[in-house]
């Protein structure tokens, strides 16, 4: 098999590295803003999703399904191109990106939180009620900390996905890492060097988080669900798993 010979020019990378870093800065900025907003907004959405009031529950469920079952790119374009038509207000690319990504991540985060909420034994919550904690205090001090802990792997992997998916915002002219890399690549005709560097830059951020994630998953596997001693159901059913995970 023939491999086309190619003269690498890494100078183009060094000379453009500050621009790439600037792009990465925008990417990280969007990621962090979206994560914080989604974590906050997901709490009421998850609670609404579990409401006894049908309408409230349906609204939350409709929202979640809408964002889970349509492509993120469509959501992004819709906020950037279609929403202004509807409202008459033009939204800058950065804001559009934050709105669309937040709406999207909130839907997924709310589902993660909901299953975390539901995993808290009802008697623990009733005990809080008997100690006259208000419903918000029960959510705040009993439910949320345990749900976050239990769902930490899911939340982290959602966050890693979000970080990578921010690359989509380059399509609405937000100067993130992907947009900048693309621009430099077409200016310099050095797509291979530039895009490889961009990929590495994404990787360098995401990989450590991914490592932390696997470590947490391994710990959870060994310890079982928070607070209860002993192996969890999975590691009891698959005895080899625990040994391997501990290695």
């Amino acid at each position, binding site marked *: 098999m023939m491999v086309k010979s190619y003269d690498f020019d890494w100078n183009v990378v060094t000379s453009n590295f500050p621009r790439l870093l600037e792009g990465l800065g925008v990417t990280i900025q969007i990621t962090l803003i979206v994560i914080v907003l989604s974590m906050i907004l997901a709490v009421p959405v998850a609670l609404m999703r579990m409401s006894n009031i049908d309408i409230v529950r349906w609204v939350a469920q409709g929202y979640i399904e809408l964002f889970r079952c349509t492509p993120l790119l469509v959501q992004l374009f819709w906020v950037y191109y279609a929403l202004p038509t509807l409202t008459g207000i033009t939204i800058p690319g950065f804001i559009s990106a934050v709105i669309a990504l937040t709406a999207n991540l909130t839907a997924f985060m709310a589902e993660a939180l909901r299953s975390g909420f539901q995993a808290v*034994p009802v*008697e*623990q919550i*009733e*005990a*809080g*009620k*008997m*100690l*006259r*904690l*208000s419903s918000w*205090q029960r959510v705040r*001090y*009993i439910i949320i*900390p*345990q749900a976050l*802990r239990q769902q930490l792997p899911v939340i982290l992997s959602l966050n890693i996905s979000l970080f990578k998916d921010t690359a989509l915002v380059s399509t609405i002219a937000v100067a993130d890492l992907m947009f900048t890399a693309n621009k430099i690549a077409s200016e310099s005709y050095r797509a291979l060097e530039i895009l490889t560097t961009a990929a590495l830059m994404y990787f360098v951020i995401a990989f450590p988080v991914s490592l932390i994630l696997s470590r947490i998953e391994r710990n959870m596997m060994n310890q079982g669900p*928070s*607070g*209860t*001693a002993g192996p969890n159901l999975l590691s009891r059913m698959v005895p080899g798993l625990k040994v391997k995970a501990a290695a």
Partner: protein
Amino acid sequence: MSQLTNTGSRRRVEPASSTITASHGEILVSARGLQKSFNDRMILKNVDFDMLAGDITVIIGKSGSGKSTLLRALAGLTDPDAGRIVFDGKVVFEDEERTDDWRDVESHVGMVFQTYTLWPHMDVLANLTLAPRKRLGLSAAEAKERAEVALAEVGMSQHLRSRPSQLSGGERQRVAIARALMMRPKLLLCDEITSALDPPVAAEVLEVLRRLKQEEGIAVALVTHDMAFASKAADRVVFFHEGEIAVNATPDEAFNRSTNPELKKFVDAVRF
């Protein structure tokens, strides 16, 4: 106008035990005509139930007879479909809803559950102090002081900083009792709190209840299958049968002289 004269808001900051006036031997709780159905099945049929301040009332009965439902109704976790609950002379439940007086009274009712309900993400101290700090407005130091007293009362002083996962079942239930004590209850509802424990451990936990009654004058309503404890420590034994109170008597009457055939059958079945 009643808003101004009502001291309700002050009580929420520090429910003084003075709001409960029933002294030992007087009626603390009285329920009349309680009814409750789940899915068209009547679980409580027509329950009249009285408890005296400072008494230990042991509630026995077959599984599904409605014991937990009664405790939950007294606790405010379940609302009956009909009937009336009077607590220390105040109507706290009537016409299918909790009255305003319930808000004054509710913090005097504590409950300990069958399953372990300590919050696993907090240590023992945090489990005990959360509600007093958030609901009674105690400072961290005041709450800690109160926690030390409560833990001493259940013999768990050395476990202030333990995590629930580090405790045995009996220890967890004793801490759960201490947690309920933090709110200074006058009535402690205990729903099969020892049924997951070995008999000697269960006996230790129940002994704590007896001490609380003697030293603090706390009334205890206890659902249990422990007939030894019932005959030894109970002031009253209440036998539930199919959603009704079939027998309400002293332990001696209930266990030795009752002619109720269902109670006899039940006691014989549990004894062995």
